């Protein structure tokens, strides 16, 4: 698996810009970019199960929330340090997704999708109502920032930013390696023709559950990052709107390309932020914009890119 150097130039520029933002921009911009990065990782991990493997899911926000609350509670109530709670949350959500995914993934596409929808809503209800544990609608606050590491104080906004950036880069690199590997190709073959894959001996059930669980696990890790960055958790942050947003970001960017959803997350965040000045109209403008995008280029941003490429005489 070779990666041409010239293909690294553009991602390198993006990373460079991201590295420079805390030095150049205001705290407001830094904060928004952090949220965008978190969404980008969510969208990227979402692409693993839905873009690459096939089944549409609507519970990504719930996995995000589970990871966030798990990490927060482990540090607040069980005295874990962030550095332990972080991987623990990832594992917890990974297992959760595996347990739920194993029976659920037997269902055909639409039924599975609807099931994940309700599963997501159910998790939200649990977070809202187990008040003794999660403080329910009162919100969980005073979550500690990651404890000092190499003398870095993570209470500061820039420090959190860089931590999340590093996490994001690692996650993206690992996801990239995964989808480019043999396993990734297997997932795509399942998406394209599950029966055929099954017939030639691929254990499709295993790989679907694996993809679902890894995707969930990464979302859980992202949740942990969020919890110790924002330091205040409220169930509404993980209601179905969040899962919807992830789906839309992935679709806008172009599913099944890994980078599509990641960039889609950035674009959607950017647009919503630029429209902050129009409080009542934001979502209307945004919905209309999505529909327009679909009319013009249904494959999302990556579709547009593909067309540009074809225009240049190259092949996709």
């Amino acid at each position, binding site marked *: 698996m070779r990666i041409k150097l010239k293909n690294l130039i553009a991602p390198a520029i993006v990373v460079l810009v991201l590295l420079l933002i805390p030095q150049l921009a205001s705290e407001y911009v830094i904060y928004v970019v952090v949220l965008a990065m978190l969404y980008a990782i969510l969208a990227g991990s979402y692409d693993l199960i839905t873009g690459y493997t096939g089944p549409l899911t609507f519970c990504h926000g719930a996995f995000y929330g589970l990871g966030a609350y798990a990490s927060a509670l482990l540090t607040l109530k069980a005295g874990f340090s962030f550095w332990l709670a972080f991987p623990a949350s990832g594992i917890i959500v990974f297992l959760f997704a595996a347990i739920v995914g194993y029976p659920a993934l037997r269902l055909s596409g639409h*039924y599975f999708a609807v*099931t994940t929808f309700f599963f997501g*809503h159910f998790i939200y*209800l*649990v977070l809202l109502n187990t008040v003794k544990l999660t403080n329910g609608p009162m919100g969980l606050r005073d979550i500690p920032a990651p404890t000092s590491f190499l003398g870095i104080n993570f209470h500061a906004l820039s420090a959190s930013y860089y931590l999340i950036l590093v996490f994001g880069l690692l996650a993206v690199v690992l996801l990239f390696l995964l989808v480019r590997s043999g396993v990734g190709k297997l997932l795509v073959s399942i998406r394209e023709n599950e029966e055929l894959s099954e017939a030639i001996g691929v254990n499709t059930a295993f790989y679907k559950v694996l993809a679902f669980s890894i995707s969930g696990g990464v979302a859980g890790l992202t949740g942990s990052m969020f919890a110790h960055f924002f330091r205040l958790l409220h169930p509404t942050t993980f209601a179905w709107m969040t899962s919807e947003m992830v789906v*839309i970001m992935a679709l806008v960017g172009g599913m099944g390309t890994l980078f599509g959803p990641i960039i889609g997350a950035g674009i959607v965040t950017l647009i919503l932020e630029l429209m902050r000045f129009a409080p009542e109209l934001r979502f209307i403008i945004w919905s*209309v914009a999505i*529909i327009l995008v*679909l009319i013009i280029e249904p494959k999302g941003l990556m579709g547009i890119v593909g067309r540009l490429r074809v225009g240049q005489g190259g092949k996709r």
Partner: protein
Amino acid sequence: MIFQQIITGIIVGASYALIALGLNLIWSITDIPDFSQGGIYVIAAYVSYFAVTLARVPFFLALLAAMAVGSVISFILEKFLYKRWRGSGRIQLLCAIALFFLLSNGAILLWTPKAKIFPAYLQGGIPMFGFVLSFQRIVVLAVSTLLFIIVFLFIQKTKMGKAIRAASQDREVAQVVGINIDSVNSMVFIIGGALSSTASVLISPLYAVFPAMGDLPLLKALVGGFGSVAGVLIGGLGLGLIESLGSVYLSAAYQHGFAFFVLLIALMFFPKGLFGKV
């Protein structure tokens, strides 16, 4: 008290079943879970509300007006949007979600987020088992039953109905055999729009009209969206009953979570849907 719960459950379930029927029809022909029906649900409620309060139109006329508006909107959405991407379920899904947000937020913008109370159109009711069953609630049951029968007969007996059934089983073969897939698509959306609107208008006088009213019923209807007409009815009613009884005897806070369990159970025992396809 339990009788009252059962009746409430059946009535609420009937409205879920109506929406679910429309969703099911649309789904079986196009593979889209049509979220925009949630938005049409909201619009229909407001149309009927204004018809009754501003235009002073009698309730049943308002109902018909709302059904007409709902079907037309649904038809237009299919013709000018969904049709473009026939075959690409994902894009249609995204469009459906965007439309749902658009319609719901549009309602907030046009009519403020505050709920409006729909004036009662029938007073009084029948006393039974320790409570009074209002006539308005009986109307919900009656109209829902009527519509179900009409739709069932339509699907079973008419030429278009047969075309819909054929297309739901195999789109390509249906086209080869000469069925006009465009007409079939339009028809299921028209029916879907009419059904969602009816569900909304029937329920409005019992509760309230507000922009977010479509969110939950849409989700619940998705649960009932399996298989045949009978299956949809049982699914919807079942959900309504379980919610109603569960919220009293189990937990009020999880009222909207029961859908998840109903779904799981339904899927475990009927992985291909209840009673097979339409």
